[in-house]
């Protein structure tokens, strides 16, 4: 397995008690792989330990990006959450740690 960060970069931010994580492919081939394999269900399963609700994925092909909406993932969000990361600042980095199939490393650069 390799980490997702080998083929993508990301950015997360908060909106109330929800967060979004945008994932950007580093190459066109990586974007094809991401669209097929980084499904909303897979991301939802990954973030389940944080209590995430039903994840929605929006495709943004002109930016070679996928935008994931993670509801209820911040244990109250902003002012209320007791967590060290109340605003989802770390969620992008966390998603980039996701292990993916090592064969992805052989995609064209």
């Amino acid at each position: 397995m390799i980490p997702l960060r080998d083929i993508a970069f990301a950015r997360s931010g908060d909106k109330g008690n929800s967060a979004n994580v945008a994932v950007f492919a580093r190459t066109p081939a990586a974007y094809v792989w991401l669209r097929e394999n980084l499904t909303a269900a897979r991301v939802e399963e990954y973030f389940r330990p944080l209590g995430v609700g039903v994840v929605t994925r929006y495709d943004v092909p002109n930016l070679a990006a996928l935008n994931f909406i993670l509801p209820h993932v911040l244990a109250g969000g902003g002012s209320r959450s007791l967590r060290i990361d109340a605003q989802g600042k770390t969620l992008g980095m966390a998603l980039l740690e996701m292990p993916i199939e090592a064969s992805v490393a052989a995609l064209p650069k």
Partner: protein
Amino acid sequence: MHRPLKVANACAFWGDQPEAAARLVAAEPTLDFLTLDYLAEVSLSIMAIQRAKDPTAGYARDFVDVLRSLVPFYQAGGETRIVTNAGGLAPAVCATACREILRAAKLSHLKIAVVTGDDVLSALKETSAAFANLETAAPRSSISDRLVTASAYLGAGPIADALRAGADIVITGRVADPSLTVGPCLAHFGWQTADFDRIAGATVAGHLIECGTQVCGGFSTDWLDLPLPQDIGFPIAEISVDGSCVITKPAFTGGAVTVPTVKEQLLYEIGDPGNYLSPDATVSFLTLQVEATGENRVRISGATGRAPPPSYKVSATYRDGFKAHGQLTIFGNDAVKKARHAGVALLTRLRDAGCVYRETLVECLGTGASVRGIASRVSDTHLVETVLRVSVAADTKDPVERFTKEIAPVVTAGPQGVTGYATGRPKVLPIFGYWPCLIDREQVKPVWRFIA
């Protein structure tokens, strides 16, 4: 043919770098506008607390210091105009403080305008409409007696009107963040309010610069590769009459404006990229083209817009109890086990003393606690050190206050190797619930006026 409008951001949040504005105008004296954003989701509730103690408070006082730092620039004939939401709950009070700075500096020819009408607290409290929470669908009646602030996100219209009338400094309360940039564009280019594609482009430009250094490489995935990280530049949007823009930064600053840094910021805090809702237009990001046109220059074009939603978004806040966080560092064999044990012991001790909490949390930083249960690389037993962070929340202040006094005694009653206690007792923090909802446009009356 209109020349491009140069709009910079000099403040991304209440507490951002105080010297950014003065440095921007020193590096780029021909900037048309500085925009400064001070208001996050619950900033206004903090201002409400400050105002309850001091009637001359209720706005971002930092901005008055920023204006003071710009006095030499204006005395030397600088013409950069300013649009900021530093007014918070009290734009006129903020403007009066600014007026005094300008008067003392013999700059009274600079005209200050304020935009108000965003405060809809009385509408939320007094009308029978439900104002249901956009996240939870709960009706407003469940929090009516605890409401602290309710502000509608106004659009660019009143900002543009004030600028057309000759304002040099426009101070607002709550407006949509990109509207701080769209207002100057409306005034400069003479767009109509139905020029939705061009307004969409300016909205994208405003969205890109509203978080300051973030579009110039701050907070980016590849941050380690940036040049001069000690001095990341603040962003400048050069907006063209067609609504496209080039994002850049002053010469000789650190960071980088690249296609990846721009893409990351484009989708920062975004929901459906095909329907970005602002009070000025509903914007699609799905038609955008992003291309590098030079070193630290990225062009964004192709935005498409439609009419904005029929309602304004309202950000309301309400009192929701108190919380505190306490931290100690634990070093030694079994550090994580000891830290967890000490945290649980502390909370048990407090409960035995009669303290009632609605929520508590024990975290061991260094173990991957930011996203507990995900992406941890090593087992806890490999760590020789951790930061114990204990948090409590309660409906009343007393049990939280008691908690803050019980942290330091863990140093003598806990395991050997506890340190990091020198910063004193933690603070009791008020919790403000966030209540996003919608209000009909007819119930909101945005207005602007000069402050003489």
